[in-house]
């Protein structure tokens, strides 16, 4: 539900030496106990121990006079083209202090009219071509993102429209009023969803007053937004100086460069720099947070803690630690809570590591009457990574799954290009993705355990539950003082 919180390690490309893997595999003790009772290994299936050695395709790159950095991966298999443009400084992180949500508001309203096109004309023009053009800047991201895709023969016409939306939005008053009405209805809709309520409370608990604590604008901030505020935000923040344009599809660099220069050449460099981001403040002393959602027949749980940022030297180690605890259906949480206990449809964990300090969290929708036991099991799984050595086979399997998965991304060049966008945004070394497999395979069990001790400190773990307080409130008291909120986000007395 919240893509920005998902770890984006998956879907890379691998360059891996097969021999060390096979050797390590042979060294692992035979008949070693599986990670939990949830899985039985018979070891009879034929597996190739080789990991495909594939060469990572590199994007072609060019810098345009107004500051735009162009990256392109040609893919001529099918006549379609997709582009994304990142505009650093125009994301929700840079909302004015008194106008939370303004960046996202501005981005959405850009599609509602330009100097020469009405809202209807914009919609009709793109949809008749089966093209799509969108702008988003929600959450606490640093950038606004313009996303464009089309059939190859409509790409230039689609970019003509996209450039008009980006450079000449008019924020018409009539559309603004309509948008406000729809957005406020959207807020009501979100409050019905237990996962939204859990994420809203969790983000508050972990991020305090930091921009990343906001998952949705408030009705008040929507109401007070004006045409002038939108136009001013657009004028100040939509500048090409640090923009990245990434294109994948049936087009050459030369053609792409020509089209981008024609469509976005009038966009003048502003000679401004993007202010640096700040880490969130340390978390408060609270422990357990319960959102009382009457009539719930399940509990939505998030257990998490502040963790690391994207450029932390521990990033790979924490990624691996996370995969062991809750990465997919082979993670310990899934095997324990679903495959062994049958208490849930799924249980996973994830790392969010942006430029400021992010967080690690485990999430599940759990059978209501075992809420207390489920929290206990999650805390226990976290604690095991701190106190028990990881079995050899499990550790090797996990590392292998992270690096062997890269071969699949060769089918989706967009995923490869995203890695290079990450490299550019975070100034990662040129060989970063080529070296990833070797780096990951060289992580030791001791490093992972040390990272668990360092980052998954029980004193900093916070528990958020959304469910029926009458049924689950008492059980949660076992884990600490419980603060109770209603589904409108207001503190209740308990």
């Amino acid at each position, binding site marked *: 539900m919240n893509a920005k919180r998902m770890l984006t390690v998956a879907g890379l490309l691998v360059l891996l030496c097969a021999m060390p893997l096979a050797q390590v595999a042979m060294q692992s003790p035979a008949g070693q106990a599986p990670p939990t009772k949830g899985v039985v290994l018979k070891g009879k299936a034929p597996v190739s121990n080789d990991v495909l050695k594939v060469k990572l395709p590199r994007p072609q790159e060019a810098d345009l006079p107004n500051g735009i950095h162009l990256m392109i991966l040609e893919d001529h298999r099918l006549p379609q083209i997709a582009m994304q443009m990142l505009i650093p400084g125009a994301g929700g992180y840079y909302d004015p202090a008194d106008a939370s949500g303004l960046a996202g508001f501005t981005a959405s309203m850009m599609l509602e009219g330009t100097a020469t096109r009405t809202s209807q004309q914009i919609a009709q023009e793109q949809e008749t071509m089966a093209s799509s053009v969108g702008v988003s800047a929600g959450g606490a991201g640093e950038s606004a993102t313009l996303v464009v895709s089309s059939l190859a023969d409509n790409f230039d016409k689609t970019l003509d429209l996209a450039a008009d939306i980006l450079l000449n939005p008019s924020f018409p008053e009539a559309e603004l009023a309509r948008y406000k009405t729809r957005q406020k209805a959207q807020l009501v809709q979100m409050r019905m969803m237990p996962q939204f309520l859990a994420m809203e409370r969790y983000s508050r608990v972990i991020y305090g007053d930091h921009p990343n604590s906001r998952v949705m604008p408030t009705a008040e901030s929507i109401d007070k937004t004006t045409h002038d505020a939108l136009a001013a935000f657009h004028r100040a923040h939509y500048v090409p100086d640090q923009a990245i344009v990434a294109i994948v599809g049936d087009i050459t660099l030369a053609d792409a460069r020509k089209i981008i220069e024609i469509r976005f050449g009038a966009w003048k460099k502003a000679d401004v720099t993007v202010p640096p981001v700040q880490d969130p403040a340390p978390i408060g002393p609270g422990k357990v947070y319960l959102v009382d*959602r009457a009539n719930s027949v399940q509990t939505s749980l998030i257990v998490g803690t502040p963790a690391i940022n994207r450029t932390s030297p521990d990033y790979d180690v924490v990624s691996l630690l996370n995969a062991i605890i809750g990465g997919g259906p082979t993670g310990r949480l899934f095997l324990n809570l679903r495959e062994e206990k049958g208490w849930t449809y799924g249980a996973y964990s994830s790392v969010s590591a942006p430029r400021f300090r992010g967080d690690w969290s485990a999430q599940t929708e759990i059978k209501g009457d075992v809420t207390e036991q489920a929290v206990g099991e999650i805390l226990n799984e976290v604690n095991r990574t701190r106190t028990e050595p990881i079995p050899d086979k499990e550790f090797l399997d996990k590392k292998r799954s992270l690096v062997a998965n890269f071969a699949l991304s060769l089918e989706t060049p967009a995923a490869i290009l995203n890695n290079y966008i990450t490299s550019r945004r975070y100034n990662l070394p040129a060989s970063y993705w080529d070296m990833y497999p070797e780096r990951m395979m060289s992580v030791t069990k001791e490093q992972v355990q040390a990272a668990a001790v360092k980052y998954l400190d029980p004193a900093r773990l916070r528990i958020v539950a959304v469910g029926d307080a009458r049924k689950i409130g008492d059980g949660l008291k076992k884990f600490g003082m419980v603060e109770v909120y209603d589904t409108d986000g207001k503190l209740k007395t308990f």
Partner: protein
Amino acid sequence: MRTRLIRALLLLGGGLSVVLGVSLGAAAPPRVQFTDTHLKNGLRVIIAEDHSAPVFSIAITYNVGSRNERLGRTGFAHLFEHMMFKGSPNVGSGEHFLLIYTNGGDMNGSTSKDRTNYYERLPMNQLDLALFLESDRMRALDINKANLDNQIGTVSEERKQGVDNQPYGKTSETIDNLAYTNFAYRHSVIGSLDDLRAANVDDVAAFFKMYYAPNNAVLAIAGDVKNEELLAKVRQYFESIPRQPAPPEVEMTEPPQTEERRQTIDDPLARLARLDIVYHVPQSLTPDADALSVAGTILSSGRSSRLYENIVRQKQLSSSVFASAGESRGPGLFRIGGLVMPNKSVADLEQAVYEEVERLKTGPIEAWEIEKARNAARRGFLSSLTSSLSRAVMLSQLAVFYNDPGLINTRYERLSSITAADVQRVAQQYLTPQNRTVVVTNPKPAAPAPQPGSQTGGL
């Protein structure tokens, strides 16, 4: 098992400029090339070779869905799908997940009213692994009470997560129950909790024997494989699995509806009223269903659509409205629905929807609206060819549903020939008051009532 040498994929010029399997012409649309073979035991095998990435996908579609279930055993096809991951003679419970992910792949299973599908996507050197896993569990399952009880628990929580703990979760069950007379489509795929709890090991074993036979399945493999080599391997893994008697045909006939059906339900988890209107329509891939698909695009695809423009943007009766008929191999439903905007009435929204339906029947349909539907079909077709997984799933499913995997190349062309007159004709024929079922979901205040003044979020 050792496989051949590590393979280097050469990518010239830094780009993915390899074109194989999907053949492109300057003007001609791309076409998926494939072979189509029946093994001696009745298993149909479709192979679409394509060497543009060192990856393959395997999809197996069993010709069984919730439409095959009987009264008192709802949810069984889906529960059974879960059992397929709990072990077979040579694979332990949960080992399937571990083998696929450890070797860089992904996998899943899914059940619909019409079919059950399983897939694996893996690096090309793990072909034997995928064939071994799928054939081992087609040959025999390790069915025991502990595994069954475990998955009854898991599926019960899946139902709560998707239905019972969500606003409007029970709305679609109410609609299908009211609109359909025939039990096959009348009940939900996830089924009832009571029926799930009543499932026993004997039921599972009988279900497996009847429906998970090679002659009731289609296996499709797309991607970086060699056709003849692969077919030999498929024979080696699958051909000795014995054929079973064909399962009974499902009686799908739906009697014509002669008057409007209507029901209002209360939902304690909802905060806004919701309107749903469904009309009986023919099965997919008939000329009328094609025209209704274009009608759906005109009515509700994107911000240029009629329902968005008039009901969402202008009249502000709803924040989003949908209209479409999903894929259905039996009698289908054309579904229109939306949430009612705060402080607006469901009656006004319903009236506004009917005005748009009538305008579709008699008013002009603009040339750009037809062009939009054609281009959307073309783009949808290209998107569906992008991954080996999508190609494999479509090939196997089209073979099961329509006995024609070649529809992967032609079904979108059908939409390109639909005219404005076709759309008006099907709108007049099917979108009629006596053919519709209307369900209104009203928010029911939770007890205890919310405290005054505690509301934020624009109520």
